[in-house]
């Protein structure tokens, strides 16, 4: 398989010019294998979980309202705007490669700027309006996480530890996509010097062609990585047992049942009907407002 595209520059020097499109297919294959693998594994091998009734009764249910807001309107708007930008970017980037041809460049860079704006908004929002730390992964969580993975793989049905507002896998996914998207955006911004915009005329010579090669490769790699990540994201969003989360990204709240089943009040407390936590969604950098749960106590 080819990894890079190289070429001889005008002086006959060998330079990188980008990733080989094989990598795009590789990303798709990885995505498909993961999705299919996971689906089969869950379907055939993981045991049934215990009936929900027990949960809903339990003392912990006391004072928990029917609906708990998980994502505010602002947060949801951001998520969907960003996902639109992301899909436009992926489509304009890769459809022409597979032979569906159309004038894609302008759409692509405008969508890129769109993505940048949503991400900037998100960073501002999460720092000013929310608790950045809610995305923090501490040792305890990691240990739990590894244990969870172990159980999942060992297929032992013991009841699992409950998460705070954001389960560990969501956090990990968020950080992964955050890094990849940042790389794509930064390199993308550099590449803006290669296109004419109302603001400036293109100048391909601001970097040496060797350096440009690196920029193109990084942009390409993050691009194909996004294919896999988005595939995984969409897959989980449509899995029946995750529906409650997906729905919460549409209508904003989760039910008490889901709350009790999946969340640990210790980590995500809900006081007299008003959730102390709002906003955010798995995978798109949701952050929790208020003080980190480990500093909390309620008696």
């Amino acid at each position, binding site marked *: 398989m080819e990894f890079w595209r190289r070429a001889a*520059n005008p002086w*006959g020097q060998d330079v990188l*010019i980008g990733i080989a499109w094989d990598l795009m297919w590789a990303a798709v294959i990885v995505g498909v294998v993961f999705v299919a693998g996971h689906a089969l594994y869950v379907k055939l091998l993981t045991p049934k979980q215990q009936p929900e009734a027990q949960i809903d009764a339990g003392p912990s249910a006391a004072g928990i309202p029917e609906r708990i807001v998980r994502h505010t309107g602002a947060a949801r708007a951001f998520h969907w705007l960003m996902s639109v930008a992301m899909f436009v970017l992926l489509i304009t980037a890769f459809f022409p490669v597979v032979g569906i041809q159309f004038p894609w460049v302008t759409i692509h860079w405008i969508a890129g700027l769109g993505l940048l704006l949503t991400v900037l908004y998100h960073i501002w929002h999460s720092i000013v309006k929310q608790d950045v730390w809610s995305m923090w992964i501490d040792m305890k969580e990691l240990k739990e996480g590894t244990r969870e993975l172990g159980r999942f793989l060992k297929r032992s049905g013991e009841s699992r530890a409950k998460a705070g507002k954001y389960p560990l896998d969501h956090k990990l996914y968020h950080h992964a996509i955050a890094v990849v998207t940042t790389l794509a955006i930064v390199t993308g911004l550099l590449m803006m010097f290669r296109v004419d915009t109302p603001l400036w005329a293109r100048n*391909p010579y601001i970097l040496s062609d060797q350096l440009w090669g690196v920029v193109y490769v990084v942009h390409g790699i993050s691009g194909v990585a996004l294919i896999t990540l988005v595939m995984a994201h969409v897959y989980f969003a449509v899995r029946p047992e995750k529906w409650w989360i997906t729905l919460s990204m549409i209508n904003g709240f989760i039910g008490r049942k889901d709350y009790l089943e999946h969340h640990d009040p210790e980590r995500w407390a809900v006081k007299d009907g008003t959730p102390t936590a709002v906003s955010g969604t798995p995978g798109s950098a949701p952050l929790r407002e208020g003080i980190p749960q480990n500093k909390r106590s309620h008696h």
Partner: protein
Amino acid sequence: MAVMRDMIPAFELFQPASVEEAVALLDQHGDDSWVLAGGLDSFDWFKDRIKRPKAVVDLGGVERLRGIRSAEDGIEIGAMTTLTEVASHSDIRESYGLLAAAANQVATPQIRNQGTLGGNVSQDTRCWYYRSGWPCYRADGNICYASAPNAMNREHCIFGANRCVAVNQSDTAGALIALDAQMVVQNAKRERIISADDFFIGPGTDITRMTVLRPGDLLTAIRIPSTWAGADFFWEKVEDRKSWDFALVSVARTMRVTNGTIAQSRVVVNGVAPYPMRLDAVEAAVRGQPVSEETAQVGGEAAVRRAKTLRHNDYKVPLMRNLVRRALRGEAA
């Protein structure tokens, strides 16, 4: 790997006798194949050792691709008909003089004796950065050298730039669009009829090709409907040398005038965009207008609206405007 720009690298040569054979060969060799018509564009690529097809399919032996026949409506010109035949054919001179005039101004007599109509419309651009074998967008690279600051782009485009700023330089392309020609394209699966207008594509659509033809496709014939037969034609090509040169700007115009006013017209300019540019706006602006200097002025201005120049090609704006004016004044071809 040192650069060498001489001696054609080895290839396999196939000389099919029928379109079927030819198409089968192209299908069989896919991306490694190369269609050889007159070869005057191809040999440059081969001798420069930039394009190195493994299998060259020489269409010279395919009788069906040669010759000019009258079709039910208009005429059909085999893609392998030489430009000399096109330029000198009596029917074409009488009814479609625009095409004859354009074909007659391609390069030189020797080239017209060998170069074909199909080859002329399918020719690759002459952007000298691209032709130098540099890794530009059009060559699957990631840069356009010609539009860089200080680049030498006197002969590049003022319209239709999309990362690539090369121009289409075919003389006959404009005439064919103006005459509403149909291109007959054959491949292993099927035969398509494409209007000349859609035959040429810009870099936005596919930056590595000038036309819709993909590997495996064969342009077999060009049909000219009687729509414009015997209409009023105008052709002019402005070039630096009067032989063996490409148009800086060329204009092909068809027109039907009824009692002094322009009933119908088609105006196509080449050498200003990566594809021959049909000027719908101009056609609309002059429809129903009297043939006059005023109309010419209006059309000329409409033609160059939204032109975007590069460092060295500003002159193409007045040149194009003036040629369109001339075309609309109704001076003879």
